[in-house]
């Protein structure tokens, strides 16, 4: 009953059903019970995801369905489930001499199908998404209690989970783009959830627009992929005449059918399919061209938008205007990792173009460092966490930028662990807000550990996880990233670059530990300070909120070591078809789990140093803090950090204002110049008429005189 196909369809279908039910009945019928459909659906979807993970794991360990790819020892597993055909435009592209398209010379249909896929990468993402969604949904029952938009909140969240699960399970670029924008829409709606607040409405719009800029890059990349590869599918398909009606064609998606040599038909290699990737090995020149670099960079622009990387990170801090569970789910654990997922999905393309890969690594490393520097001086707890998210996402891109299996697996590993500890930290911050009447400025808080012990304890676990203290989750995944980067830094092209990025990443780890514990100490330690807005709410949050915190805290403790053990995650991910082509994937199954003690020592050292510094400055020696702040102010570093590197004013000055000015100018010119010209032309006939009017005065003597004169002129010309 629970085949992979059923599960794969069920996982997005459940939240979709919850969306429909809540949207239809929420306002009038369900009201304060609007969470019921969603929580039930997510619980089921989570179980289904676990089932899918187990199935995929078992299948991928068994004999691979199509045998190992030529030249590669690693086996891969994928299952393709086509649902319906979205759009077909016949004979859209004729490949041939002089055309860019690489592939058999023939006419191709533009054919987009709604196709889902199951492979290790998707299975891992689905489990993370559904688990965090479920916990956040349960937490929101308490957090959103009594809000007039209660039903609306759960409707949007249901739509989000549907879109996000689809995003990670579709198998072509068009649908990836569709759900990429769909999660953006949910983000827009949820950031602006309290639309009466002008800041929230503006933040929603900003998020959408900045993402649109990134998405336009993504779209350009998709168009170039179509031009270059003549397909937008991830997987290979085989197009054959329909056995029942030969004039029609039928498309086979399942790898078993596609690989089946007995099945007549034309095989079209998907962008990330076996055919294309095999060719990549045989025709190295084909996949190292300018088109591939352009495609990768444009896709990366899309990823920069969604995952808040430089230079498109500016929307994420503002997105904190949304309800805190939204920040935890969408803007920390799941949606913002879509960019990382996309780069991991397209890993072979990035791996094949060193320039693009290095750009990804530099963007990731620079973003990680920049955001960590900014986080040091922020005073809004949620914004600190937002910048921390940007920074950690930067880590993941840095790992992706290595282009090796080690790096891609480390990036995905960090994505998983980060989902736990960052969701935990955000929900903890939400718990604080719940108790303090919405106040989140850490300068106005203090000593909350006495008031809310559970929140404090779980927040501490999350903070240790983020700082990377052994044996918590962040330690393992961060070390994996550092290891991958350092490996690239030892030899090969761009080794100096990766070596520099390794140092930057270590420094970022120091800052991470520092700002995390600065926030923790200021909020939960020191003299008890509770703002007056808190009223009589200054107590621990209800059970429905603390239980998800505890679950996430347990996850933060165990998930890192669990996945690190025997490098199980890396070896599982290596069975994803596209990832299986990466350097090192072939040997992943055999190689000994290498644990680098020197990196572990270094990262632990900087983490402890960061925590110690935070403790020293904020708990023990306030005088030193003032001195240090003064020095930093004198150097200008403080202003840079507090001013968030001035991205917003610079964008406003260079892009937004000039465009708005141009818009007003155009509006003016349209009214005055273009329409003015039209009116001027329209005025010509009457003007001509007015000019001629004196010649028709209606006086008989005038006409008589004119006739006479005319006659004379006529006679005169005839005589001469």
């Amino acid at each position, binding site marked *: 009953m629970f085949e992979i196909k059923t599960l794969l369809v069920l996982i997005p279908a459940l939240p979709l059903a919850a969306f429909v039910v809540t949207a239809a009945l929420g306002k009038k019928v369900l009201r304060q019970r609007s969470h019921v459909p969603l929580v039930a659906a997510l619980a089921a979807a989570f179980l289904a995801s676990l089932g899918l993970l187990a199935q995929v794991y078992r299948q991928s360990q068994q004999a691979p369905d199509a045998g190992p790819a030529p030249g590669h020892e690693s086996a891969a597993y994928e299952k393709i489930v086509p649902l319906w055909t979205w759009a077909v435009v016949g004979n859209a592209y004729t490949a041939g001499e002089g055309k860019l398209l690489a592939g058999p010379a023939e006419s191709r249909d533009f054919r987009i199908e709604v196709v889902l896929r199951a492979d290790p990468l998707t299975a891992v993402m689905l489990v993370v998404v559904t688990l965090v969604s479920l916990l956040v949904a349960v937490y929101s029952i308490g957090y959103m209690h009594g809000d007039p938009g209660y039903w609306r909140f759960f409707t949007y969240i249901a739509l989000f989970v549907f879109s996000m699960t689809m995003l990670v399970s579709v198998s072509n670029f068009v649908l990836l783009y569709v759900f990429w924008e769909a999660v953006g829409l949910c983000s827009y709606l949820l950031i602006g959830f309290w639309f009466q607040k002008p800041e929230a409405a503006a933040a929603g*719009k900003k998020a959408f627009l900045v993402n649109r800029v990134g998405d336009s890059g993504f779209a350009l990349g998709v168009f170039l992929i179509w031009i270059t590869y003549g397909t937008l599918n991830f997987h290979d398909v085989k197009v054959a005449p329909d056995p029942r009606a030969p004039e029609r064609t039928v498309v086979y998606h399942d790898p078993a059918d596609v690989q089946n040599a007995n099945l007549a038909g034309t095989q079209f290699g998907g962008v990330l399919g076996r055919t294309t990737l095999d060719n990549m090995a045989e025709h190295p020149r084909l996949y190292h061209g300018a088109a591939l670099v352009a495609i990768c960079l444009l896709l990366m622009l899309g990823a920069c938008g969604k995952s808040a990387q430089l230079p498109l990170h500016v929307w994420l801090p503002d997105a904190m205007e949304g309800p805190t569970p939204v920040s935890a789910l969408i803007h920390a654990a799941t949606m913002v990792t879509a960019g990382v997922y996309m780069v991991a999905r397209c890993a072979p393309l990035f791996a094949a173009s060193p320039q693009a890969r290095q750009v990804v690594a530099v963007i990731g490393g620079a973003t990680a460092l920049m955001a960590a520097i900014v986080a040091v001086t922020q005073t809004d707890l949620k914004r600190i966490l937002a910048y921390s998210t940007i920074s950690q996402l930067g880590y993941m891109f840095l790992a992706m930028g290595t282009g090796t299996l080690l790096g891609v697996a480390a990036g995905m590993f960090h994505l998983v662990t980060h989902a736990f500890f960052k969701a935990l930290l955000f929900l903890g911050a939400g718990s604080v807000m719940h108790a303090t009447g919405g106040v989140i400025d850490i300068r106005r808080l203090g000593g909350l550990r006495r008031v809310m012990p559970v929140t404090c304890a779980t927040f501490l676990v999350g903070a240790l996880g983020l700082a990377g203290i052994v044996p918590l989750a962040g330690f393992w995944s961060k070390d994996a990233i550092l290891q991958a980067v350092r490996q690239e830094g030892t030899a090969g092209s761009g080794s100096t670059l990766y070596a520099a990025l390794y140092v930057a990443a270590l420094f970022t780890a120091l800052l991470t530990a520092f700002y995390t514990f600065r926030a923790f100490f200021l909020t939960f330690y020191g003299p008890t300070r509770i703002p007056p807005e808190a009223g009589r709410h200054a107590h621990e949050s209800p059970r429905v909120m603390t239980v998800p915190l505890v679950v996430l805290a347990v996850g933060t403790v165990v998930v890192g070591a669990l996945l690190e053990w025997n490098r199980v995650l890396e070896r599982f991910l290596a069975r994803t078809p596209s990832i299986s082509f990466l350097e090192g994937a072939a040997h992943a199954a055999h190689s000994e789990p290498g644990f680098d003690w020197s990196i572990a020592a270094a990262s632990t050292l900087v983490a402890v140093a960061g925590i110690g510094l935070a403790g020293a400055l904020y708990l023990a020696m306030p005088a030193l803090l003032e001195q240090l702040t003064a020095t930093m102010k004198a150097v200008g570093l403080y202003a840079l950090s507090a001013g968030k590197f001035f991205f917003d004013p610079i964008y406003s000055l260079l892009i937004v204002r000039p465009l708005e000015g141009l818009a007003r100018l155009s509006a003016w010119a349209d009214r005055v110049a273009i329409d003015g010209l039209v009116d001027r032309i329209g005025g010509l006939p009457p003007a001509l008429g007015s000019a001629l009017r004196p010649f028709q005065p209606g006086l008989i003597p005038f006409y008589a005189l004119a006739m006479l004169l005319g006659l004379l002129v006529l006679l005169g010309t005839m005589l001469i």
Partner: protein
Amino acid sequence: MTTLLLTTLLLPLAGAVLALGNGARARHSALMTTLVTLVLAAILVAQFPGGTDVFAKMDLGWLGAADGSKDSIGICFRIGLDGLSVWLFGLTALLMVVAVLVSWEAIDQRPAAFYGLLLALETGMLGVFVARDIILFYVFFEFTLIPLFFLIGIWGSEERRYAAIKFFLFTLAGSVLTLLGLLAVVLWDYYHSPTGVMTFSIADLTANLAARPMERWMQVGVFGLLFAGFAIKVPLFPLHTWLPLAHVQAPTAGSVILAGVLLKIGTYGFVRFALPMTPEGVAACMPWLLWLSLIGILYGALVALGQDDVKRLIAYSSVSHLGFCMLGVFALNPLGLQGGVLQMVNHGLSTGGLFAIVGMLYERYHTRRIEDLGGLARQTPLLAAFMVIFSLSSIGLPGLNGFVGEFLILVGMFQRGWAEAPAALAAQYRAIAVLAVAGVVLGAWYMLGLVEKVFFGPLRVPGQGAGRHGAAHGTAHEGAVRDLVPREVLALSLLVVFIVWIGVQPRLFLDPMAPTLEGLSRRATESVALAHGPAAQVPRLNGDRSFPEGHAAPSHAAQGRAARVPRLNGSASFVYSEN
């Protein structure tokens, strides 16, 4: 089926007479008429078989006999549906129901005349899309002008007279030139016809001109004449200035119809006449046409961004969206053409809906100024929800209809630029393709900006203190303003159904029109190859072929040349200058 089409076409005209005689209950009879018309049209659309044949064909003698005898002048009453017209036909019938519903309470002066004109307009618009005779088409084309002239001039806002006259003169000036172009086609065909029969049938003319193309200069000239009328109707930059004025001054139903259907007559005319009859003319002007479309996209979006009037903003967004339609059409390949035609329908749904919403706003707050309004989502949450849906459709959010059209258009344009362009033009086409994507970003900016200012933030309604304190005053006002009533919800839901349907299952809408449009784009491709030479032998960016065993198919250019019939006017028997 044939009589059904005729009935559908004439029913609104009968309804118009009924409405005129009905006085106070004119709106009820108008609603009944449009609903029955919609049902009939839906039956026709549902029965449409696809393929290239004309569906529900009917030929009646008119100024000449329908049998095509040599003595008659050959102007006939020919109607029918094909892949190009079928969705526009259905869209017209759908939007008319919406137009009647949004006028329900708004029109209290002389309702009988209003609904009579509205229904007469419906016959005119349906006629434009079903006409298969050039003169019949032109008659319907002009016939749409008159009711709309009165609708704007009588029931419009403050500057209605000026707007109506400007709209009328602008369109008339263009359409007279278009008539000249159409007549030139007929006469050219007559002089070169081996049978000596003068035909006005669009199908016959298309087929004849495909077999015996006009000379290149002649095609360019005729295309220029056709362009004059259709480009004004679309409108293409810089012939667009009548549009915002007409939209702002028109009553809501007028705006819905104008944006939803009447603008499409221009794009429809290009695809119906210019592409098949003067393909080389189109191909010769192609770079210019693409640049004009692009300017329309970007300029329209920028001007929309600079507006302070809701209705005017949406009017300029139409300029931008129609630029996308034309970009797709003039990309002259299957993707672009199908995307362009689908986008015509999409624009009708989304912008028609947006104008309906603006009308509903105006009925409630009596202002269209953006700065007078704010935070309306609190007072009218349903209206706000619909506004968000239509805005998202308009900015091309995936999952809704606008995305499908824009995506196909852009893929088509990219293909034109990267794979199908001659070397001399490749850079231009690529620049156009990339810049058009920027239009998508600008579109999101002005639409979401509008939603944010009008519907989000603290409540601000006219007659209250502006600024943040408006919220406090607004609460007192809250009871006075109603959210949408069921009639309005029905009107908007009709559109939303199709907005979602096209977005999720576009194949259902693309497949019926594909065969007709494929034929068109095949001809266009050949002409492009003739006009600009074959696609450039662009050095492959990737350097190598992935499938060395793959063999090259003959390029379109070669096929085009081979298929080309020698020009008949070169031979001695067709020297028409001596006649």
